[in-house]
């Protein structure tokens, strides 16, 4: 049987049997997404304390409780105000105990130190109350707002923003560390030398290694996307062709960089810091966790040329539905990755040494 086939099979066995390695490959992306999806959820609801005299105004409390906009806790006045003051709750809604007037005044107390949550709370409560007013009084509204998003119709959460970034980041880490530290270890321990003593050609061993990393990379990307969409309810698009193209190109670039590092360094101790040096700036600057548009001009001018930036931007564009494979911005990202591939691939083949 062909050596590439048998080598690939052996490497896959190695990968699947390395339970710890598999665990850590998937652990960080999953944990990051879970954490951020919780943060995202609690932000979209208003945490509201309702202070109502017992037995009175139950209809109002009930209406607030049933609304998906609010997370309602009933409590007494002083503790409600205290919680708001401390920033644990967004606002306290105070229902008066008696009403003689035709209009009941609901008092909303908020903490203006927290501008954002206060604005959200006030806005949500006002909108809700006027809607409830209309519904109860039976008068038809004079105006209605028909809101329509410009691109895709789903409201995007932070998780939707994060997921493509995580995919890009995973691809970078797996490829860089896999090849970079894996090959150095083989070199150090004499695994490569042993293969060198057989008729196996270097290119066959390298092909098997690359195939192995590609399969592992795509499988873990699929698991992460599956987890995010089914369990965490991320709403993203996954146009298969475009996504695969970006993932494969990204892998090729980062595998080449890994090769260069493994070719240049003699030991594990030398490899790991170099890989960290390459991956850390990209991890934080390439728009994985937050858009790089918020950086100072000079920084974002540089960052836009990073391979991880091209990857993250292209994936995010595709998955949010803002870009199609035909879009100019997408083509720019692909071109950027291709240029990186030519440069790093050439360097990798020049610097690689068996001895």
């Amino acid at each position: 049987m062909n050596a590439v086939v048998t080598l690939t099979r052996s490497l896959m066995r190695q990968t699947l049997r390395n339970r710890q390695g598999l665990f850590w490959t998937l652990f960080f992306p999953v944990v990051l997404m879970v954490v951020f999806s919780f943060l995202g959820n609690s932000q979209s609801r208003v945490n509201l304390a309702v202070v109502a005299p017992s037995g009175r105004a139950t209809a109002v409390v009930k209406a607030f409780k049933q609304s998906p906009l609010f997370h309602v806790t009933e409590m007494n006045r002083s503790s409600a105000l205290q919680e708001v003051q401390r920033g644990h709750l967004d606002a306290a809604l105070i229902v008066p105990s008696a009403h003689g007037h035709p209009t009941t005044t609901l008092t909303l107390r908020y903490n203006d130190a927290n501008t954002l949550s206060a604005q959200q709370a006030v806005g949500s409560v006002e909108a809700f109350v006027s809607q409830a007013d209309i519904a109860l009084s039976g008068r038809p509204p004079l105006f209605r707002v028909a809101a329509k998003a410009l691109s895709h119709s789903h409201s995007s959460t932070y998780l939707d923003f994060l997921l493509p970034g995580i995919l890009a980041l995973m691809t970078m880490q797996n490829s860089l560390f896999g090849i970079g530290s894996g090959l150095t270890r083989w070199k150090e321990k004499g695994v490569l030398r042993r293969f060198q003593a057989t008729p196996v050609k270097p290119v066959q061993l390298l092909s098997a290694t690359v195939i192995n990393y590609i399969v592992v990379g795509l499988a873990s990307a699929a698991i992460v996307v599956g987890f995010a969409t089914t369990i965490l309810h991320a709403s993203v698009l996954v146009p298969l062709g475009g996504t695969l193209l970006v993932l494969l190109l990204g892998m090729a670039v980062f595998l080449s960089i890994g090769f260069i590092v493994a070719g240049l360094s003699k030991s594990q101790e030398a490899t790991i810091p170099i890989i960290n040096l390459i991956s850390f700036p990209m991890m934080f600057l390439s728009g994985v966790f937050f858009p790089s548009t918020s950086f100072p001009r000079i920084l974002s001018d540089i960052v836009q040329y990073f391979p991880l930036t091209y990857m993250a931007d292209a994936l995010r564009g595709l998955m949010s539905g803002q870009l199609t494979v035909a879009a100019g911005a997408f083509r720019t990202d692909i071109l950027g990755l291709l240029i990186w591939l030519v440069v790093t691939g050439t360097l990798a083949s020049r610097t690689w040494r068996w001895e």
Partner: protein
Amino acid sequence: MENSLRIENITKHYGALTAVDHLTLSVPSGIVFGLLGPNGAGKTTTLEIVEGLRHPDGGHVWWGDLDVFRNPDEARSRFGVQLQTSAFFELLTVKETLELFRSFYRRALPVSDLIARLDLGEKQNARVGGLSGGQRQRLALAVALINDPEVVFLDEPSAGLDPQARRNLWEVILGLKAEGRTVVLTTHYMDEAECLSDRLAIVDHGQVLDEGTPKELIQRHMPAAVVEVSRSVGVDATVSLPGVQRMEERDEVTMLISEHLEDTLVGLVNWAQQQHRTITGLTTRNATLEDVFLELTGRSLRE
């Protein structure tokens, strides 16, 4: 046709260090050839050059008509190699490892034969990462034999083996010779070199100091018998005894290398009586390969 392995003038520099220095050797086919030398003598470097794993700075290697450096692929498919330290995929089993290496060759032996021959049956489904040092060593030898090689290179095959496993290894090596294969091995054990090798080369500083059958080497460098007494007896350079060619002190022993055993012994007894000394630790023996080694390299084997 009678093949032979011809190593001509190979040289290898590492910076200022000359690891192999115009080394020339000829190994007739079908024999076990031993390379002996102290640590750092250049044995591993020599083997790896001959195997086609390292590029020499000069020289040629021929196996019969085959120019090893010109046709490395052909050479690799006909050579079997056990490296001084070789690592395999840790998470594969012994059997899977052998099957993997088997797939690289057009001609190969059945995996089950090698497992039986190297007594790996109990461990065939164990992961390589969990093998003991000696078991790993046996796996490395099995992998070296998987392609039914014409020449087998073994770099310290008995390192880390227990005495029983060493005996078994010797049998395997003698079995390889009986099958008509040529074996080139390095070792730090004199008994092993003496018992296994048909011919030997003693190497130091990348050069061959001498080469021949174990008998020839002893005859050439240590024609005489060796008389040993405790150092405390006080026989030293000022004492001249009949027949003694040379005197050496090693640890607690004074060695008298003698051309004429009887004369030396009589002289020693007479001297002791005159000086009122007591002779302790007296032994006489024939010179060994170890003595030759020490004579040639000035270093003991396992130094």
